[in-house]
C-alpha cells in the first residue's frame, strides 16, 4: 500500500488544484507514495457513463491498464467521480471475462483485476488511527466541522462496498483522528445538485442551500468535503445560493485533506486554502492557525 497509482483526473489539474496539492501533501506525510499514471486520460465522467456502457468501461480501463503496465497493484483517485468510473470498469471487467478478453484483443488493454481501486478516503481509512495521530502537530480541537460525503464516495453500495451508504463515518473518523471536533448531522450523503448547476441551477442552489442550512443548524464552522464538484457547488456558488435562498452563509468549505494538512502542520497556503471563494481566514484565526 505504500506505493500506488495516482489518478488525479481533470478537476484536480484545474478547478480543484488545491485538492491535488493537499492530497499529495497528506499522503507524503503518511508515507504513501503516489505515482501519477503517465498519460492518463479522461475517466469519461458521467458523459460517457450516460452514453455507452462499453465506452465508459474502456476509458477507465485504459487508465487501469497503465497502472497494470507499471506494475502498480492499486490505484487511488481522490475525485469520487473518477473513483466511481474506475471502480465500475474494474468490476465490469472482473465479472465479464468476455469483455476483458475483448478489451485485451481489440484495444490492447490489459487490466489487472486483482488490484484495488481506492477513493482517497477509503485509502486513508486503511491506516491505523495511531498513524494519523502521530503526524498531528497542530491542535484543531476548537474547530467544529461536519463531514459531507456526497453521492459517489459511498454509493452505490454494491459497487463501492465501503462504509454505510446512509450514514457514513469514515471521513469523520479520519478528521477525528486529526484532532478536529466532528459534529453529527443528517445531510452527509444528501445530493448537492451536482451538474444540475449547469442545466437547472435553481434545483442545485436549493439543494446545496439545504446542505449549508443543515450544517449551520448542526453548529458547524466549516464543511469538509472529498469531491471537487461538491466543493464547487458549496463554495464557488455560495454567493449565488445566498442570493437564491435569501440566506447569509459564510461557511468555509474545505477539502478533508486540507483539514488534515492543517493538523499535520502545513501552512494554509501550502494547502491552497487561499484559493477558495469563501474565505477561511477568520475561521483559521479563531482556531489559532498562523496564516502566513
Amino acid at each position: 500500500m505504500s506505493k500506488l497509482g495516482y489518478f488525479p483526473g481533470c478537476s484536480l489539474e484545474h478547478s480543484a488544484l488545491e485538492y491535488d496539492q493537499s492530497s499529495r501533501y497528506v499522503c507524503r506525510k503518511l508515507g504513501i507514495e503516489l505515482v501519477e499514471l503517465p498519460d492518463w486520460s479522461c475517466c469519461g465522467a458521467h458523459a460517457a457513463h450516460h452514453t455507452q456502457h462499453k465506452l465508459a468501461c474502456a476509458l477507465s480501463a485504459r487508465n487501469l491498464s497503465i497502472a497494470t503496465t507499471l506494475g502498480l497493484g492499486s490505484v487511488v483517485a481522490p475525485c469520487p467521480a473518477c473513483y466511481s468510473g474506475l471502480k465500475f470498469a474494474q468490476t465490469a471487467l472482473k465479472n465479464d471475462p468476455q469483455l476483458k478478453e475483448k478489451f485485451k484483443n481489440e484495444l490492447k488493454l490489459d487490466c489487472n483485476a486483482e488490484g484495488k481501486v481506492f477513493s482517497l478516503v477509503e485509502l486513508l481509512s486503511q491506516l491505523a488511527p495511531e498513524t494519523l495521530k502521530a503526524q498531528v502537530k497542530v491542535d484543531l480541537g476548537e474547530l467544529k466541522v461536519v463531514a459531507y460525503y456526497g453521492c459517489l464516495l459511498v454509493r452505490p453500495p454494491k459497487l463501492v462496498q465501503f462504509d454505510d451508504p446512509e450514514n457514513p463515518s469514515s471521513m469523520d473518523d479520519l478528521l477525528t483522528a486529526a484532532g478536529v471536533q466532528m459534529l453529527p448531522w443528517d445531510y452527509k450523503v444528501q445530493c448537492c445538485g451536482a451538474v444540475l448547476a449547469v442545466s437547472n441551477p435553481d434545483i442545485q442552489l436549493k439543494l446545496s442551500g439545504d446542505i449549508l442550512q443543515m450544517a449551520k443548524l448542526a453548529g458547524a464552522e466549516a464543511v469538509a468535503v472529498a469531491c471537487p464538484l461538491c466543493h464547487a457547488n458549496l463554495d464557488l456558488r455560495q454567493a449565488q445560493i445566498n442570493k437564491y435562498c435569501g440566506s447569509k452563509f459564510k461557511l468555509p468549505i474545505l477539502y478533508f485533506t486540507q483539514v488534515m494538512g492543517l493538523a499535520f502542520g502545513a501552512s494554509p497556503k501550502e494547502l491552497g486554502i487561499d484559493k477558495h471563494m469563501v474565505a477561511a481566514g477568520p475561521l483559521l484565526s479563531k482556531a489559532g492557525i498562523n496564516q502566513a
Partner: protein
Amino acid sequence: MKIGVFICHCGNNISAAVGVELVARHALRLPGVVCAHTIHHACSEPGQLLIQKCIREKGLNRVVIGACSPRVHEATFQRVLVQAGLNPYLLELANLREQCSWVHEDREAATRKAIDLIDMAVGKVARLQPLLSSKVDVNKRTLVIGGGIAGIQAALDVADSGHEVVLVERTPTIGGNMARMDKVFPTLDCSACILTPKMVELATHPNITLHTYSEVEQVSGFVGNFKVQIRKKARLVDMEKCTGCGACTLKCPIKAPAEFNLGLDKRGAVYIPFPQAVPHIPVIDKSICTYVLKKKCGLCQKICPTDAIAFEQQDEVLEEEFGAIIVATGYELMDWTVYGEYGHGKYKDVITSLQYERILSASGPTGGHIRRPSDGKEPEVIAIIACVGSRDAAHGRPYCSSVCCMYSAKYAMLTREHLPNSRVYIFYMDIRAYSKMYEEFVQRAQEKYGANYVRGRVSKVFERNGRLVLQGADTLLGQPVELEADLVVLAVGITGTASTIALAKKLNISHDEYGFLTESHPKLRPVESSTPGIFIAGACQSPKDIPLTVAQASSAASKVLGLISHDKLETSPLVAEVNIRRCVGCFRCLDVCPFSAIEEQVLRDGSKVARVNPALCQGCGLCSAICPPAAIALSGFTDDQLISQMEGLCSQNPV
C-alpha cells in the same frame, strides 16, 4: 411370465404420429409377451373392459400400457388391474403421448421411439413384483405448536370435535401478536374483545392441555405416531398455588424493557406479560432476578400471600405421543434498523407498527393516549411509511407483507379518532386492498378520516429543530416532497422467525430463506407441510391477516381430523426395503436418508443391519443409490428393474 401389451390410439392423439399397429406387432415379438392389442381409448370403459378381459382370458400376470403420461392415468389403470384381480403394481406405462406423439413430427422416428419405449416398459414390467401396503395405528392426540390466534383456533377446532389436544407455547402466555393489537381491520372491533374469550375457552377446554413457557425439544416418529419431547421451562412460580393477584409484580425492584410492549415501557423481573394473559400467572425472568443471580432480595417470596414463588423449580421434560402436529408459530417484524435512511433506529420517535398498536391500545404503556416516546407529547403530524422491509429486493425482502396497507389505513382512522386535530400522512407504493370490505375500508380512511395518501417512497428521515423531517417523492405529482412530522410509524415487513427455522429442523419440514414454512403444494395442499402428518397454519407459512389466518387454522384442523378419523393408515408400498441377508451394516443409508426412516436393527447373531420404517420412508431412493452391495432396494425402482428397463432398450434391434 405372461405380459399383455396394450397400445392406445388416444383418439388420434397418439396414432397420428405413431404407427400403433406396428408397435403392437413388434411388442408381440418381445420375450414374455403373450398378447398385444391396440385400443382407441384405453382409459374409456370399453378400453378398460378389453384390458380386463385379456387379463382374465389370457391369464396375464404383467401389463404394459402404451398411452398417456403415468402422471395422467396411472391410478386409473391400476384400478383396472385390481378389478381384474391383479396386483396394481404389476403395471408399467409407456408414455407414448406427452413424450412421444405430441412432440415428434417425423412419423418414422416417433414410431421407432415408441417401439423403444415399449421395449423398455416390457423390460421393466417383467421384473416387477406384487407390492402390498402396510398399515399403521393412528394416535388420536394432536399437538399444536404456537399459541397465537392460529394455534388457538386450530386447537379449539380439533378439541371441539372431541379429540385430545396439547398446545405448546414458547412465551409465558398465549395470545401471540394478535393480543398486542388494538383494533383490527376491516371492522375495527377491539382485538382483545374477540381474542380473549377464545384464550379463556382454550385454557378451560376439557380436551385441551396447555403448556405455556414451554418448547418442543425433540420430535421423532412419523405420521400417526409422533413422539415429542416438550420442555416446560421453570417459571419459578407454582402454578397450582398462584392466584394471579400480581402483588409480587408490583413489589419487584428490578426493571427491564417489557417484551409485550416492545420496549415502550418496563416490567419487573417477576411479571405478567399483560393484564389478560392466559394463564394469568407471573413468571420470573431468571436472567435478571437478583435472587436467582445473587440470592439477594426475595421480596416477591415475602409478599406472596399463597407462598407460590418457587425459586427451586427446575425445567421439566415431558414425553408425549401424537398422531398429528399443527405448526402455528407465527411471525415477527424484520429488523428494520438496517435502514440507514430511517436513522438505523437512533430516533426515538421513529417506531414500528406493532409499537404503535401498543400506543393505541387502551391497555398499552400510554393507556391508549397517543403520546410519542421521546417526550410524551401528543403528536400533531403522524407519518406512516409503508413497505419498510417489504417489496424491497435491495434489503433482501422481495415479498409483500400483505397487511401493511390495511393497518396503515387503520392507523389513520384510529389516530384521527384519538386526536381529531392531528394530520396523518401515509407514504405508499401501491394500495393492496383485495379482500372482502378492504377497499371500502381504505376509501373510508381517505374520505371520512382525511388520511393523506402520498404515493412514493421516503428516501430519508432526519431530525431538524426537534422535529422529524421526511424527504421523499410524490410520484403522482412528480415532485420531491418534504414533511415535518412528530411521529413516524414504519409499516415494518413481516418475516419468519429463527425459532421457526430451528423448529422446522426438529420436525424435518422445509422452510424458505425468509423462515416461512413451505407448504406441500402452493395451491392444492396449502396447509400440509413436506412431512406427512405435520400441518402448518397462519403467518408461519407466509404473511397473512387475521381472517386468512383463522381460515387456514380451521383448514389445518380439518386436515388433522381427516387424518385421525382413521384407526389405521395405509402406507405407500413404493418404499425402500432392506435385504438383511445382504446388508453388511455400513449404515451409509442411515446417514443420507432425509427422513430418518432408517434405523439399526440387531440380529440374533449380534450383527447390526439397517431397517426401513415404511411409514417414514418417502421413497426417494437415496439409500438404494448409495448401498454398496445393493442390499437396500426401492420397490418399483430396484436396480434390477432399471437395468432390465435399460437393457430392454439397448438389446433390441430397431425396426
